[in-house]
């Protein structure tokens, strides 16, 4: 940096812009490299079908024709990014949310937002149940040594078990008992968000140091008062960290839970029907919808986290 630059106070706007470009530019580069690889892959993987058809029809293709065709097939092996984007747009903005059927106004199953809702509703319900239960158990564990010793090893071990993979069975069993619809799926997501919250919150509730606990003892505070005035506030950063892990797991859980049970609605169902009928564009658009949902959920939690921590004076 030259002397003149160092002395002239840079305008706030330029600084902000520079900071943004420092953060955004590398990300943009990586993303555009990924998109470029994707286009290249789409060309390479879809080429054979095009060449095959051309050979059967006895047509010679120029490179431009070949490339154009690989980007616009109906059932490509790998749909090009713009095809997926177009499908996403057409099935969300291009379809009505509700349509009239047999004289009633019903949700339109052609709309991807409807499927996203079918997946998100049980995810959120289960997430709330699972997190609350996890919070209660964590409070119990912190206050009771027997509970700590007996539950914690199992809570930790349960993280290593591929529960997600057996989620479908739970659905089948609950269907056999007569529970259908939102409840079985939300039980899965409740279970999946339960353990991260337990483990994280036990850590969080124990995070106040001996000094703080001693201080409350000199105030002759009861355990309930200690819990609400010291332990719970101290555990808030841990709570949000585990909630973020939990909600991502809950969403994946709901999607997987929809897979082998032949669910008709939901993002998992879209994946499954897409794979049955070879509708690759549908699979990819469902996949992106799931990704968007996950990103939005985590982002919302992140915003709440920032606002909460700021009000508590805890943000860095």
């Amino acid at each position: 940096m030259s002397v003149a630059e160092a002395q002239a106070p840079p305008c706030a706007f330029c600084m902000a812009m520079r900071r943004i470009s420092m953060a955004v530019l590398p990300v943009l580069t990586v993303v555009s490299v990924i998109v470029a690889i994707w286009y290249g892959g789409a060309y390479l993987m879809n080429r054979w079908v095009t060449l095959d058809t051309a050979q059967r029809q006895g047509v010679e293709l120029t490179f431009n024709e070949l490339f154009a065709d690989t980007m616009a097939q109906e059932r490509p092996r790998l749909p090009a990014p713009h095809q997926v984007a177009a499908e996403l747009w057409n099935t969300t903005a291009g379809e009505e949310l509700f349509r009239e059927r047999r004289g009633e106004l019903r949700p339109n199953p052609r709309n991807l937002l409807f499927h996203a809702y079918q997946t998100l509703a049980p995810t959120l319900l289960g997430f709330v149940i699972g997190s609350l239960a996890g919070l209660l158990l964590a409070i119990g564990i912190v206050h009771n040594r027997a509970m700590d010793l007996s539950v914690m090893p199992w809570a930790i071990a349960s993280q290593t078990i591929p529960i997600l993979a057996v989620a479908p069975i739970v659905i089948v069993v609950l269907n056999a008992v007569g529970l259908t619809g939102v409840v079985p799926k939300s039980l899965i997501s409740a279970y999946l968000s339960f353990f991260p919250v337990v483990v994280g919150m036990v850590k969080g509730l124990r995070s106040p140091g001996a000094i703080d606990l001693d201080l409350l003892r000199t105030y002759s505070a009861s355990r309930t008062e200690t819990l609400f005035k010291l332990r719970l506030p101290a555990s808030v950063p841990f709570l949000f960290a585990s909630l973020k892990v939990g909600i991502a797991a809950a969403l994946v859980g709901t999607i997987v839970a929809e897979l082998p049970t032949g669910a008709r609605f939901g993002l998992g169902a879209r994946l499954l029907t897409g794979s049955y009928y070879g509708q690759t564009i549908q699979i990819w658009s469902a996949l992106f919808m799931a990704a968007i949902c996950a990103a939005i959920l985590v982002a919302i939690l992140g915003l709440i986290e920032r606002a909460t921590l700021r009000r508590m004076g805890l943000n860095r």
Partner: protein
Amino acid sequence: MNAALRNIPILPVAAVVVLVFAGFYDLRLWVLLAVWLGAWYINTRLARSDGPVAALWVPVIFGLTLVGLWELTVRLYEVSPVILPAPSAIAVAFAQNTDILWADFVQTILKGALVGYVIGCGAAFLVALAVDRSPFLQKGMLPVGSFLAALPIVGTAPIFVMWLGFGPASKAAVVVAMVFFPMLVNAVEGLKASDKMQRDLMHTYAASYWQSLVKLRLPTALPFLFNGLKICTTLALIGAIVAEFFGSPTVGMGFRIKIEVGRLAMDVVWAEITVAALAGTGFYGLMTLLERQLTFWHPSQR
């Protein structure tokens, strides 16, 4: 007196009271309650004594109690085996089907999950080494990587099955896709973990890039690498099993679960779940052991 009153755990006491009263209508509840309270009493007594005895036996007793309550509930209430088989029935199914379970284990865990795990984690590590040399790439890769790591990658399973067929190759590919980004993020973080002072010291020794990588930066990265490796064990199993739901040869854990659920042979399904649980815990435990051997110097291991 007041303090003692305030410290009574309200929720558990309320639950016990409710159960006692419900027992007047259904005597079987009293049996279950008695077993639970008995085990809990033993555990509370044990927990008061410090030391390794309590730390080992309290969780064991708790686990056994849960299994016992499960067995008792199934027997007392004559729960249909289609809904929930008793643990004893699962054990019998496990013993009778060891050959099938073993074949499924080899197909799914060894050929699918393990191969994908090694390839995925290896590739992620190599990419992390490359990314690490350029701060620009690092800044771009970390946010993108951690974004992708939070996505429902399992959803790519139908795509890989479509591309690579029903064999173990498609399962391994799903596992690669699942473990790649969590591992990448952890490896990149790990390679940054050494102190500036330490790196300067290596510089004053005129150490080359590779020397400082092997002697300083890889060892300091190990705790992060193992963190990634441990997260990925579970992901690998999930990926391999879920991918089989979309198509598989007539062997494999996901295939077996799907088929036996259809035939309502829930005891075999639960035996398969037991295998998955044992495999997951074993795999994770193996990584933890390795970690303890290799990162004995780290504060978290002391």
